[in-house]
């Protein structure tokens, strides 16, 4: 009953005209960046963050969240029609979605993708409602050692699942931690690695770093490529899947939703990993695994459900523990802090309107997305025809304005350009940007937790192993670190994902 009251409060917040407008704007922009390759949800969120300064924290988070799950919807369109994933979580949809389109079944592929996303998003929200309150109560038992160990676990899971080389992914995480230490020390107030530049006293901003690594670097990389996109020009018809399609897909949708939701909650997890894992599971349980990759509708339904459920699930650790589980959530953490809201176990009691308003808005946003994606599919297809020669200067301009308008500082723009070059070199050398960004965001929190824990234990590291929650997290992290060294693990094909953008 109490849950229904909270949900009622959430919907009353979500249905306020201002919040409805921002929700619509968020899902619209999200679909747009999902459709357009080259500008992902992370870059879009960092770009629009300054624009939300004038509004309320609730409206701001509703819009930024809308961009995230909106991009999950939009990304499938490019995967199915062009065989280019609009964003990383739609990579798996390409395999069967594009084949379906080639067989003249683009409509059902787009339809099952949109309905499946809506279904998974809805179940994901129910999961959020059920899990959040118990998790908040559990999180109240957390002290500095638990927070530190949980963040270590998050970084370890991310490097374990997303990299072809765990050593290099960990190197990038260490680099992120170093960049995160720039600026004034939280405890002593001493300036660290600021090189007498006053703008660096507050540290390096998240937005310039993210825009450089994910936006500018992408443009620099694509300057050297001659990309030809072949958009599926036949008219997309019959968006409603047939009864046979539904019968084939329903199990995949359910499995994808459950897998995606729990992988979304997992620190270091997220929509990309969820879509990869759900596709692998679907292929394994299927009676006709040979049809996968040749236009099996289950191969579209499962990853699409998984990436949307994961997008919802990822909000749980952020809103209840204050720990972002992936780069997108790190952006949201930054947005909450800028708006003076500290995410964590107390968020639910101190800002219930924000917590439940955001949860309810996701449901409203999912309904809006269904309306946006199916009837307007023709418009999104037209957008795909925008040539890169026009698109890239516009992306650059978005990045320049976005990084400047945070502090009205040219130094931030220079930092963004520097990280653009670093990101470009990282991509050339197959170094992952995602562990770097997550470590960069978690770094200051990790440092504070580590130093507080050590002061509390008078310098003894045993504090991390004598407290059950902390010890469990660290043991799992150690196991994940050791596993790639084991011969049986190294022989298993396809366990490691090769995706650079784990947002």
């Amino acid at each position, binding site marked *: 009953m109490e849950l229904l009251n909270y949900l009622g409060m959430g919907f009353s917040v979500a249905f306020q005209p201002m919040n409805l407008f921002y929700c619509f704007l968020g899902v619209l922009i999200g679909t747009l960046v999902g459709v357009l390759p080259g500008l992902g949800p992370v870059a879009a969120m960092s770009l629009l963050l*300054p*624009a939300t300064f*004038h509004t309320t924290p609730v409206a701001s988070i509703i819009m930024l969240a809308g961009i995230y799950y909106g991009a999950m919807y939009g990304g499938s369109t490019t995967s199915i029609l062009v065989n280019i994933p609009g964003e990383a979580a739609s990579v798996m949809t390409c395999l069967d979605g594009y084949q379906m389109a080639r067989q003249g079944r683009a409509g059902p592929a787009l339809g099952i993708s949109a309905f499946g996303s809506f279904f998974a998003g809805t179940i994901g929200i129910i999961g959020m409602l059920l899990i959040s309150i118990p998790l908040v109560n559990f999180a109240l038992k957390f002290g500095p050692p638990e927070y530190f160990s949980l963040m270590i676990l998050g970084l370890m899971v991310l490097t374990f699942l997303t990299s072809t*080389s765990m*050593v*290099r992914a*960990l*190197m990038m995480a*260490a*680099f992120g*931690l*170093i960049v995160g*230490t720039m600026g004034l*020390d939280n*405890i*002593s107030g*001493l300036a*660290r*690695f600021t090189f007498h530049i006053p703008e660096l006293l507050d540290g390096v901003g998240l937005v310039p770093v993210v825009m450089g690594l994910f936006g*500018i670097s992408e*443009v*620099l990389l694509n*300057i*050297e*490529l001659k990309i030809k996109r072949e958009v599926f020009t036949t008219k997309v018809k019959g968006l409603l899947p047939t009864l046979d399609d539904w019968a084939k897909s329903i199990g995949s949708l359910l499995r994808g939703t459950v897998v995606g939701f729990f992988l979304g909650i997992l620190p270091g997890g997220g929509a990309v990993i969820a879509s990869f894992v759900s596709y692998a599971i679907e292929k394994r349980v299927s009676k006709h695994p040979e049809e996968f990759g040749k236009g099996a509708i289950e191969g579209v339904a499962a990853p699409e459900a998984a990436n949307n459920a994961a997008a919802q699930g990822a909000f749980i650790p952020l809103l209840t523990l204050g720990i972002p589980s992936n780069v997108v959530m790190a952006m949201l953490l930054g947005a909450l802090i800028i708006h003076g809201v500290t995410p964590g176990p107390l968020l639910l009691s101190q800002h219930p309107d924000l917590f439940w308003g955001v949860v309810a808005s996701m449901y409203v946003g999912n309904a809006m997305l269904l309306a946006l994606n199916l009837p307007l599919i023709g418009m999104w297809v037209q957008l795909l025809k925008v*040539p*890169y*020669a*026009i698109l*890239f*200067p*516009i992306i*650059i*301009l978005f990045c*320049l*304005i976005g990084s*400047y*308008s945070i502090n*009205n500082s*040219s130094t931030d*723009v*220079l930092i963004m*350009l520097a990280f653009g*070059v670093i990101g470009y070199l990282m991509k*050339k*050398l*197959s170094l992952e940007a995602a562990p770097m960004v997550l470590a960069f965001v978690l*770094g200051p929190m*990790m*440092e504070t937790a*580590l*130093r507080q824990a*050590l*002061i509390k*234990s*008078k*310098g*003894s*590291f045993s504090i991390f192993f004598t407290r059950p929650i902390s010890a469990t997290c660290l043991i799992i992290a150690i196991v994940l670190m050791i596993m790639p060294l084991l011969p049986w693990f190294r022989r298993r094909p396809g366990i490691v994902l090769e995706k650079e953008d784990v947002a």
Partner: protein
Amino acid sequence: MKKTFLINDLVWIVFAALVCYGGLKLGFGSFHQPHAGFMPFLSALVLGLLALVDLISGIVNQWKEEKGDKKIWADIHWGKLFLTLALLFIYTVLFNTLGFILATIPLLFFLYRLMEPRPWWIVFTASLVTTGLFYLGFKVGLDSQLPRGFLGF
């Protein structure tokens, strides 16, 4: 020998050594009373050790699983790349002095031309329209603080 990966690891090792030194200069403190240099030192130590592991494993395996140097660097249009970066750097330096509109029109003009050569008047019109739309969207619509420049707009 794949020089790119060898140089990459060496750069990270040197970088880690510099940060370790910086951390020690800031003050490591002790485990029961960590100071400002504690976290940078530990992070850099981890980075340096991992880079060393990567270097040794690369030398032992001869970087067999990696792309060759030629494959990594062959297709790059160095001219376009450096020109783009130079344009962006000049734009950033002049942004405040010239103001958003005066700085952005030439930037877009050069970027559009760089990406795909088209008649100058088409490119100029496109630059003008794009700048105008961005100005309307960000300055008028979202009230972003874009620099006015010496002409006051």
